[in-house]
C-alpha cells in the first residue's frame, strides 16, 4: 500500500530525510514541509541523494514553506512537484497512510 512520508527537518541538521529515503518503499511518496523544504533545492550537498531517490519514490514540496523562506519554486530539483495546502490534503487522502519523520 502506498504510503505518504512527510519530512519536516532540514537534512543539514537531522538525518530524518536520510532515514526516510532509506526506508520508504518503491512507489511511496515523500512530502517535504517546514524546515524540510530546503532538501528540495537544487545545488545543495543533498540534491544528488534526493534526485537518486526519485527513481522509485515521488517527491513533493510544500510551496508556502518555500515562500516563507525565500526559496524559489523555480529552483527545486527537477521532478519535485510543488503543492499548496490543498495539495497536501489531496496527497494525504490519496495515500493509504501518512508517516511523519520528525
Amino acid at each position, binding site marked *: 500500500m502506498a504510503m505518504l512520508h512527510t519530512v519536516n527537518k*532540514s537534512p543539514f*541538521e537531522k538525518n530524518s530525510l536520510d532515514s526516510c529515503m532509506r526506508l520508504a518503499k518503491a512507489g511511496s511518496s515523500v512530502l517535504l514541509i517546514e524546515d524540510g523544504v*530546503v532538501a528540495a533545492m537544487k545545488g545543495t*550537498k543533498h540534491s544528488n541523494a534526493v534526485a537518486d531517490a526519485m527513481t522509485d519514490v515521488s517527491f513533493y514540496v510544500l510551496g508556502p*514553506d518555500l*515562500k*516563507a*523562506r*525565500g526559496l524559489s519554486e523555480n529552483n527545486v530539483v527537477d521532478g519535485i512537484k510543488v503543492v499548496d495546502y490543498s495539495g497536501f490534503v489531496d496527497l494525504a487522502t490519496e495515500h493509504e497512510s501518512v508517516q511523519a519523520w520528525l
Partner: protein
Amino acid sequence: MEDGDQVIKKFMYMNRKSPYGTIYALESLEVVLIAAAFDQDVSLVFADDGVYQLMKGQNTEEIGMKNFSPTYSALGDYDIKKIYIEKESLEERGLSLDDLQDLKYEDEDDDWAEKDSIHLVSREELAEVIDQQDVVFSF
C-alpha cells in the same frame, strides 16, 4: 567596572537554524535587539542553516507567521555592525551572498557613510573570530 567606566566585552550570537521551523531565529533576534542597549562589542554569525535566516524575498503570508526578516535591516540602527556569514555554509546549500539581504550601517565617525555589515568568512577565519569572544550565545 571602575569610575563608571564600562567594561566592554565581546558578545557573539551564533545563529545556526533555519527560520520559522523552530523559534530559535526569532528568539535570537529579539535577544540581540534587547541586549543592544548595553553597549557591548556585538557580532552575529550566520552559519549552517542559520544562513537561511537572511534569505531575500521571504513571504510568510501563507504559513500564517510573522515575517521577521525585515528586522535584520534595522540592526545597523542598533549599532550592530559585524555580521559574519560562513562561506562553506552558503556553498553547501548552493547559495551565494547575492541570495541574502544586503545589510548596512551608517558610520557616525565617517559622515554617516553607509558601510557593509556583512563579512563573508571562511570556516577557518570564523573559528578565529569565535576564539576571540568573551561570550558566545548559541541559537
